[in-house]
């Protein structure tokens, strides 16, 4: 035996994913997203789905991600570890992956919104940044 990679491993979800183009769970999520997008369009109410809380294998997360596709916007945040955000092929639906400093996934969310809240500059940070900016400004005395 050459090594671990020689052991044929087939996971149930791989099987499911290859057998059918869509699983019932993914279909249900897509329907939920469509409904939520409609609500958001009409009322402005945002929505977040936490994928980790759903009983599905990781492979199904991937399936959902493939279904949603990739749109025009990609954003990288560096805040307590990297966060990768992209707008899916359906504007208004965002894919958000928070990682910690070790690169491990903390949460993986699908947001229905015009722009994920975390991208905006936060009041507290603006306040703190302003202070820093003022402190950093060269004063007239030194000029």
């Amino acid at each position, binding site marked *: 035996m050459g090594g671990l990679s020689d052991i044929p491993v*087939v*996971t*149930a*979800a791989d*099987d499911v994913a290859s057998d059918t183009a869509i699983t*019932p769970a993914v279909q249900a999520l897509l329907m939920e997203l469509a409904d939520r997008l409609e609500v958001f369009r009409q009322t402005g109410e945002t*929505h*977040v*789905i*936490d994928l*980790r*809380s*759903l*009983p*599905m*294998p*990781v492979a*199904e997360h991937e399936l959902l991600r493939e279904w949603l596709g990739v749109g025009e916007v990609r954003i990288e*945040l560096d*805040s*307590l*570890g990297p*966060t990768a955000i992209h707008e899916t092929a359906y504007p208004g639906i965002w894919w958000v992956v*928070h990682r*910690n*400093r*070790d690169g*491990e*996934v*903390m*949460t993986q*969310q699908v947001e229905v919104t015009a722009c994920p*809240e*975390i991208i905006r500059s*936060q*009041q*507290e*940070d603006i306040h*703190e940044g302003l202070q820093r900016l003022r402190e950093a400004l060269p004063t007239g005395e030194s000029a």
Partner: protein
Amino acid sequence: MTRPTLAQQLARQGISRRAFLKFCAATASMMALPPTMAPAIAEALGKRTRPSIIWLSFQECTGCTESLTRSHSPTVENLIFDLISLDYHHTLQAAAGEAAELAREQAMEEGGYLVLVDGSIPVADGGVYSTIAGMTNLDMLAHTVKDAAAVVAIGTCAAFGGIPKADPNPTGAKSVAALMADGSIASKPLINVSGCPPIPVVITGVLAHYLTFGTVPELDDLGRPRAYFGDSIHDRCYRRPFYDAGKFAKTFDDEGARKGWCLYELGCKGPTTHNACATAKWNMGTSFPIESGHGCIGCSEPDFWDAGSFYKPLSAATGDLSGLAGGAIAAGAVAGAAAGLYARSQKHKAAASREKMTVDDLKD
């Protein structure tokens, strides 16, 4: 001296609001709260101060601590060093000997601290089977719990007695709840975080909940947080459709097993086990036992070690019925023979006392 709030503390460490929001989103996910709760968590955490935590380890294998320190989201370092003040933990603390015990005494002075317990507490023979710094586990626990705000029993040993309490339980191991119930220690709000070991994210989630809201989360009838223990493994299992369709793996290497069919017949305890494995998963969210092809062994339930084979279906008898049957048949034979012979003797007596009927008996 007024303690700084958690938000102040984080800001002081140069952690941005954005980072804090991200942390809160992760925390909400960890606490199995709807992600829309993140802003509320941020607000609550912003006002709380760093609580003092005392971690006591008794009859245990350190698996629970191992589990916790491998917690990945958010990293336990964050939790421990940023949000709580872990004043006493055998395994993790740098201090040793009297200095360590002193740390514990100091932490207790202020009161309102949280006590985390892992391991069961031996009470047989005066508790001699496990002592720390010359104190029995029971004494140390009783002493520490007296002024605690709440107690969290980490792991199945602390929550239900676990393996040390398994038959024949030579050390007289008891759970924290049992000691509270029999009055050996003071009764305090108790959260059982069972599992062997508990899912790390469940440990941190419970702590995060306490940190955020300062309250004990909603518990099930076994004192476990409903957010994590409300559903059975079976309820949330991705193999559940196979169960419903009656498709079962019969051996670990048959076609059914390869196709990922339900492991019920191979002894999976999913239907009777309440835990968050199917959603929280293990090893950085890689998988959980059923996903790896092994049935659930029911480690987060009371008496899981004594509840029959891990590899027999749930409907199987746990006792030795065939052995018992032999005895029962012998006993039945003896009792039956005795009853039968007694009846026979009654019949002989009746025959002896029988009077022959004559034609005179027919005349009035």
